[in-house]
């Protein structure tokens, strides 16, 4: 199998790595680069657990041919915290019990980051829309929506 060189920015740092032909970005990040934060869920674009940002837009890394990110900027959950200082979204997920098993959390965080980067004070409906491609089987979504609202500095409307 032919190896292809690919260079891109990963969480602000340059990466140069070889990709196998046909390899998806998720596999390259996890096995080639060692960034285990994006998760493999369905492999078909349904669950959103592999969501990363490419040039600031949410994309499904399992459906992205790795070599197509040549020269682009890729952001994963690994890049959110600054040393011991968690990102506001990570803090809010923790405070609002938005993670149970945690498998969907990296994808949720990146989908939420894409929203807040463009819309710092979203409506609850915009939050729901932003995570509509991400499946969570534990939380019932409400704590996640609350966490994203809290991270944007807005009041949390608790269900019930």
């Amino acid at each position, binding site marked *: *199998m*032919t190896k*292809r060189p690919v260079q891109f920015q990963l969480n602000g740092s340059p990466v140069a790595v070889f990709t196998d*032909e*046909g390899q*998806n970005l998720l596999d390259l990040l996890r096995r080639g680069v060692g960034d285990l934060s994006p998760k493999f869920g369905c*492999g*078909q*674009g349904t669950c*959103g657990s592999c*969501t990363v940002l490419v040039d600031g*837009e*949410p*994309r*499904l890394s*399992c*459906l*992205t*041919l790795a*070599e*197509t990110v040549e020269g682009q900027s890729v952001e994963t959950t690994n890049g959110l915290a600054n040393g011991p200082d968690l990102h506001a979204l990570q803090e809010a997920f923790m405070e609002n019990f938005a993670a149970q098993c945690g498998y969907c959390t990296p994808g949720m965080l990146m*989908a939420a980051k*894409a929203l807040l980067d463009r819309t710092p004070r979203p409506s609850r409906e915009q939050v*729901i*829309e*932003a*995570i*509509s*491609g*991400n499946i969570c089987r534990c939380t019932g979504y409400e704590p996640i929506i609350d966490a994203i609202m809290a991270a944007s500095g807005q009041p949390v409307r608790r269900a019930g």
Partner: protein
Amino acid sequence: MVTVTTVDTLQEAAAGVGREAVYLGGGTLVMRGVNYGDQQISEIVRLRSQDSLRVIRSEGDRIVLGAAATMGDVLRSSDCAALHVVARQVGGPAVRNMATVGGNIFAPHPYGDFAVALLALDARLRMSDGSDLDLETLLAARGSERRLIESVSIMRPAGDDFRFRKVSRVKPKGVSLMSLAAWLPRRAGRIAGARIAYGAMAPTPVRIKAVEAALEGVSLDANSISGAIAAAAQGLNPPDDPLASGWYRTQVAPVHLKRLLLGEGGR
């Protein structure tokens, strides 16, 4: 094992497809196949840059969408305002940043809701060999098509002449049990030249010409459209899938067509 060939022009990519390679647009169909070991995919051909195929522009009373325009591009385009309701119902935001107009035309059942809207809006395709083709003709022979789509030209609907409805079991982002699109141009309040298309009711999106004929010359009210409702599933043999049986689809088609035409029942 998959090989990947990167080329600079759509014509070179089409030559690759001619030798049985699959074309990589946004990746939502092809990479899914690769991930699941689809043995039909041994060679992928892709363009180094698809930017020139992502342009959306006005052309008289029509809108031209580059085949590589994504659902996200459609949502950012004010020219495509009538199609926003359709693009918004394709996957979540990440899928919409990847899924392309051209790819949607080749999406297998039960996907391809955007193509249903294109079919209703009289889509004409500019192919990679420079020829023009209407979407209905391409869909009829979709499996054997070896050319690629360069752009799609559609009518720009006036006012509320365009209607779209996606029926799914999971909200907000379920797969279609059925999708319906209608272009209903009117003259003096009466429909003239309607185009009605369904998705997930046949192997490809289809026009329902019996309904179109029944709508000709009538006004859009419950009594006048009764003939069209009666013809809602005429000539269709919808497929069974895990979402619904063909029988069920046939039974509910009149309900959803009526809601579409009268603007009832939300989206």
